[in-house]
């Protein structure tokens, strides 16, 4: 199994714990991730400002993978969605494809057909599969209660992700976490957005969306939250302390990436998975499993 690894902007600069743990997990499972130096921003961050330019950036990145005959595996949900959406759009719209190709010729690229675009978690869920993952799990996480945050762009718009999971009753992340033996926690606000995209516009609105969900997780008794997107992590991990002080409340809920959770079950150490880089402390959590 071989993929071009699409890191995007946020992960290599701000979420090295995610990148580190994903590379470890991929290596263990025999997924070859190829780095393409020329990849740029996926286009998602400028979609609200300039949709044409955002599509051009996505098409540029798709072309670089297509040139090498590789499908794309992305770690960020927004990157996955932005690239998959443009691939979907261009497969249906020949005129738009021509316009894009005119622009891409400036950098010597031509969009012919799109590579497949997959989120890392989807690759684990659909392609690697339970049996192959279980072979590599050494540590039992049954003392942990873990809830998953699916977020938005990991699943939606559902047609660009081939409806691979049920938007109204998603299960792929819970199924992967369950392989570790951890107890799966369901909670009323499971499907809600993290609020992240509004952060640069209105911090209060963004943080109160995040706060609602943290309350729902606390009430459900989760020990930790499982994430698959660095934007969501900015909200639940990076901003958790400011939410606590703003609303005079306490959560202390470790927010781990799926790859850190799987990595723990695979027997990797805290540092190998970048757990020391998580903002909300994870020591008490890992002490429960003897680390």
């Amino acid at each position, binding site marked *: 199994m071989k993929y071009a690894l699409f890191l995007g902007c946020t992960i290599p600069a701000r979420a*090295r714990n995610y990148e*580190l743990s994903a590379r470890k997990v991929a290596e263990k499972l025999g997924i070859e991730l190829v780095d393409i130096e020329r990849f740029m921003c996926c286009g998602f961050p400028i979609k609200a400002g300039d949709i044409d330019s955002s599509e051009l950036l996505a098409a540029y990145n798709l072309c670089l993978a297509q040139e090498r005959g590789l499908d794309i595996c992305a770690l960020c949900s927004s990157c996955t969605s932005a690239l998959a959406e443009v691939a979907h759009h261009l497969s249906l719209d020949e005129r738009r494809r021509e316009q894009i190709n005119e622009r891409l010729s*400036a950098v010597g690229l031509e969009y012919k057909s799109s590579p497949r675009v997959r989120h890392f978690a989807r690759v684990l869920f659909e392609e690697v599969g339970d049996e192959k993952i279980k072979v590599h799990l050494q540590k039992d996480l049954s003392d942990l209660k873990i809830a998953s945050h699916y977020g938005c762009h990991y699943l939606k718009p559902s047609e660009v992700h081939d409806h691979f999971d049920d938007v109204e009753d998603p299960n792929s992340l819970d199924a992967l976490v369950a392989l570790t033996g951890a107890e799966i926690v369901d909670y009323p606000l499971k499907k809600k957005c993290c*609020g992240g995209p509004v952060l640069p*516009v209105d911090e209060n*609105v963004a943080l109160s969306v995040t706060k609602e969900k943290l309350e729902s997780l606390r009430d459900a008794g989760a020990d930790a939250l499982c994430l698959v997107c660095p934007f969501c992590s900015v909200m639940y991990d990076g901003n958790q302390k400011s939410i606590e002080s703003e609303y005079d409340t306490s959560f202390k809920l470790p927010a781990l990436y799926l790859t850190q959770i799987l990595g723990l079950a695979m027997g990797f150490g805290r540092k190998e998975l970048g757990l020391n880089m998580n903002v909300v402390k994870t020591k008490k959590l890992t002490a429960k499993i003897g680390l």
Partner: protein
Amino acid sequence: MGTIDLDQGDPDFVKELAGQSGGQIRACFTCRTCVASCPISAINREFNPAKIIRMALYGLKEEILKSAFIWLCTTCYACQERCPQGVSITDFMTHLKNMAIKEGHAPPGIRAQLKLVKGEGRIYPIDDFDNKKRNKAGLPPLPTSCDAIKELFL
């Protein structure tokens, strides 16, 4: 979002929107499923996607494009996935934002992001310090500059 003043309507606005994806807003029958699904409406009653659609259908272009509320949409797609009439509400919201920025209305954060990505190719350009930290963590280095972006956006 106060009361709607129909006298300010711009009939061409709906036509402008109809050419874009997310423009099938005429199909909306005001069931408010989108409002019930929206994480922003849940905490801020002022934000109401069904009402924004009504306003657009009435041609209230200036009022929408100048508003602060269109920027509160997180693009979560909860509304779009559930709309019984198949209105691409999230895409519609994105087009409104695109139109607003062209008319000179946009929050500074959004403007800054646009400038950064079109200039540097990344929202967080990589510098030597980042690569040092990457190296320490055992991660491969990344390029600290991007030529292609300049050629793409000449």
